C-alpha cells in the first residue's frame, strides 16, 4: 500500500475533525449545527469512497461499461444525508425557540442560567 492510498482517508479525517471541533467547542448553536453537518458529510465521503473502484463508473447500467462502482454505499449515504438534513431542521427549529425563550443562541452564555438551581 502506498502513502497515496491513505491520502484520501486522511483528508476526510481532517475535515471530520474540523467539524467535530466546531460541534463541541463552539458556543453558537447555528455553528454547532453547521459543524455537525460538516462532520457528517465527511463521514459520508468516507463511506462513499469505500465503494469507489478506480476506473469504475456510476452504477447505472449502460452499454460499454464493464466496471461499476459499488452502489450499496451510495444508498447508505443517500439515506444518511436525508437523516442529516432532518436533524439540521430540528436543531435549527430548537435554536429558534431558544432564541425566543432566552434571547440568545450562544450556549456559553446559557450555561450559568441553566445550572442555577430553581429556587
Amino acid at each position, binding site marked *: 500500500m502506498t502513502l497515496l492510498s491513505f491520502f484520501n482517508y486522511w483528508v476526510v479525517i481532517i475535515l471530520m475533525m474540523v467539524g467535530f471541533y466546531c460541534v463541541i467547542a463552539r458556543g453558537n448553536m*447555528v455553528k454547532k449545527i453547521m459543524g455537525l453537518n460538516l462532520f457528517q458529510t465527511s463521514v459520508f465521503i468516507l463511506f462513499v469512497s469505500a465503494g469507489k*473502484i478506480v476506473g469504475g463508473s456510476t452504477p447505472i447500467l449502460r452499454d460499454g461499461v464493464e466496471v461499476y462502482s*459499488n452502489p450499496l454505499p451510495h444508498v447508505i449515504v443517500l439515506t444518511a444525508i436525508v437523516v442529516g438534513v432532518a436533524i439540521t431542521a430540528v436543531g435549527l427549529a430548537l435554536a429558534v425557540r431558544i432564541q425566543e425563550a432566552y434571547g440568545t443562541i450562544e450556549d456559553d452564555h446559557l450555561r450559568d442560567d441553566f445550572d442555577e438551581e430553581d429556587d
Partner: protein
Amino acid sequence: MRVRDLFAAGMLFAIYSLVSAGLFTVLDAGDVALTEAAVGAGLSTILVLAVLTLARRYEHPVGSHNWLALSVVLVTGALLVYATLDLPEFGAADNPAQVHVGPFYIENSYRDMGVPNMVAAVLASYRSIDTMGEAFVIFAAALAVFALLSVRPRRDMPGVRRRHPPRSAASKGEEDEA
C-alpha cells in the same frame, strides 16, 4: 470555521456542500452528488438563513481555545488515523466491499427488476425498509418542527414553571373536568 459572521459561514458551508457534491461525482456517486447539492447547498442553507433572520448574525467572540475539546477531537482523530492504517486500499477492485455484497446488486439488479439505475434498485427494493425509515425520519422532522414552531411565540416562557402560588382548590376542580 473561524468566521464570526454567521451569514458568511452559512455561505461557506453551502460552498463546501457543493464541493463535496463534486467530490461525490468524482467518486461515481451521481445520486449522492445530486442529493448533497440539493440538500446541503439548497435546503440546509435556506434554513440557516431563515434562522439568521431571527437570531443575531454575528457570533460572540470566543475567548480562548477550548483545550478539552481540542484534545477530544485529537484523540478521535488519532483513533481514525490508526484505523485507516488497516483499511483496504482506496479504489482497489479487490476490496472486501467490492467482492461481497456489492457485486450481487451490480450483477443481478437488472435481472431482478429491469431497472438500470442500481442505486434506485437497492434503495427502493433491496433495502426498501431503510428507505421507508428514511421517509419516516423526514416525517418525524416535519412533525418535530411543526411541534416546535406552531406554538405561538411567547417571551415570558418561564424559567421556572408556575412560580405563581398554587391555585385554589376550587379552580383545580374545574380543571379536572376540562
